[in-house]
């Protein structure tokens, strides 16, 4: 549920033409964001995708009032996050990239004390802590000091701490990094549940299946700019086909398949993106040439690779 100061009629997040230039003494300045505009609407789950160094964390830090933009504006529920961060802060919660829980707290203490610092009552903090521990599969280790936990268990603790806040707007920077497939799905379920309760979230991830499963909408960021915006389905469609045919070990056959659609090669196999109606013809060639093929749906990963790859080529 949004907190008392959540202006529910204002968009959770609106960024306009955000620029960030890092200046560090002794090293050249880095333009991490070059005019990013994006918005997150109420109860949306939006994913920010992009290669390493694209500017995702920079954006999240500015949005979560931890970094000042060089120019541009950013509003959190109608509050200017740069000029009036005190208004924005009560409305947000953040899983920082590579954040760790306090090593000398147990997961239970970490979550509970964090909720208390956010001003929640003892009773609410207790119930929410129990729920979050359960949701994140931490019950077995809830009373062990975080220093004795595995990397994934620590990350689960961080996520549990933040989801237990039920903050109106959540920023999650690679929340599922290092988690096993079960834990990742537990995070997805917990985030969906939060949406149901009224929260909005912006997250980053390098797991494209996760972005596909979780986000209502996504932005691809490349070199500090928004390259694409849309739903996962829209992005997948932009690749020019809905099926991908992977041909193992035969990279020399590129030319045979070019006419069918986009052909990508990673050195050991060929991937051809095709429309369902041309699949038969393609398979006929594959059978004639005795090639081992697998057919599957186009995934967000292909769409991402192609969109970003094309942008890299254009720049070169």
């Amino acid at each position, binding site marked *: 549920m949004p907190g*008392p*100061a959540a*202006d*529910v*009629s*204002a968009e959770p997040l609106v960024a306009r033409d955000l620029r960030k230039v890092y200046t560090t003494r002794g090293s050249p300045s880095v333009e991490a964001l070059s005019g990013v505009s994006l918005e997150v609407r109420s109860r949306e789950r939006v994913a920010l995708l992009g290669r390493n160094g694209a500017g995702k964390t920079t954006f999240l*830090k500015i949005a*979560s*009032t*931890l*970094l*000042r933009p060089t120019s541009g504006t950013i509003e959190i529920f*109608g*509050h200017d996050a740069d000029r009036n*961060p*005190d*208004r924005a*802060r*009560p409305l*947000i*919660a*953040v*899983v*920082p*990239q*590579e*954040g*760790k*829980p*306090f*090593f*000398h*707290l147990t997961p239970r*203490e970490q979550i509970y*004390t*964090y909720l*208390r*610092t*956010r*001003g929640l009552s003892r009773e609410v903090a207790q119930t929410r802590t129990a729920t979050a521990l359960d949701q994140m599969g931490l019950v077995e280790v809830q009373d062990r*000091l975080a220093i004795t936990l595995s990397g994934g268990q620590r990350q689960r603790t*961080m996520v549990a*701490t*933040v989801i237990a*806040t039920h903050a109106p707007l959540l*920023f999650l920077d690679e929340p599922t990094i290092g988690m096993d497939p079960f834990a990742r799905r537990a995070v997805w379920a917990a985030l969906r549940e939060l949406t149901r309760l009224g929260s909005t979230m912006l997250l980053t991830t390098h797991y494209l299946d996760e972005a596909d499963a979780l986000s209502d909408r996504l932005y691809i960021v490349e070199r500090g700019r928004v390259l694409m915006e849309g739903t996962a389905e829209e992005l997948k469609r932009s690749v020019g086909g809905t099926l991908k045919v992977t041909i193992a070990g035969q990279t020399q056959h590129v030319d045979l398949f070019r006419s069918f659609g986009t052909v990508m090669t990673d050195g050991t196999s060929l991937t051809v993106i095709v429309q369902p109606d041309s699949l038969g013809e393609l398979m006929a060639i594959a059978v004639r040439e005795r090639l081992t093929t697998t057919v599957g749906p186009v995934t967000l990963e292909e769409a991402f690779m192609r969109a970003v790859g094309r942008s890299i080529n254009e720049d070169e």
Partner: protein
Amino acid sequence: MRTSESPAPYRAFRGLSAFFWTEVRVQSHESTAMATSMVVQGVLLVFVFILDRSLLPVAFLGAIIFSMFTMGQRLLNEAAYVRIDHKATDLYLASPLTPEAFFLGMAAGVMLVYLSPVIILFVFAEIVVGYSLPTVLLLVGTGALVWLFSASFGYVISTFFRDNRAIWAYASLIFNGFGVLPPVFYPLSYFPAALQPIALMLPPSAATALLQASIGVTSLSIGAIALAASALAGETLAMFLFTIYWARRKVRED
């Protein structure tokens, strides 16, 4: 369209007590650090014991003030560690917990935990020396001010580091330098006369000068007492207010 609902008023120390207890819980695991926090004081007391026992009343007061002073160094380490290594600072600062509550809660948490060896030291001093009540009250007052000064100072310094490796060298230089060189463990009169006004203006040695005067080891003119007292109180207040400002500013990197 915006609703006219007015947001909650800003409360500067919102979340303070909860974060204070978090920090107490975190710090209380460092029993080795608690014990070793007494090493420098202990060694100096042993030297005084061997070299000149008549100086023990001065040295015990110095050891207690020094202990309060080095709590700023603990805070410096803790604040930098939590920010740089854990990145947990982001978790706490992008939240309703205010930056000033974060600073003060962490400072008070560190202080509470490191106070236990100081209390043991105090009890020991009472047994060996037996200070009068006014001196004890003055010790509590000046000790609190010295702590607040050094905690504020330590927190500000912590924001300048991007890497934990360099910290210990600077921190031990600053804290041992200001705590050991000036007349904290020894009488003010042993300090070069020309530099005595400076000693009266540095918080740790201002505190010990007042304490030494109260046990009759050092005689201070009214002017010197006023200088030491106003320097200690004024610098502490100024440092504390600056730290509140700085903590708010430094939530956000530039």
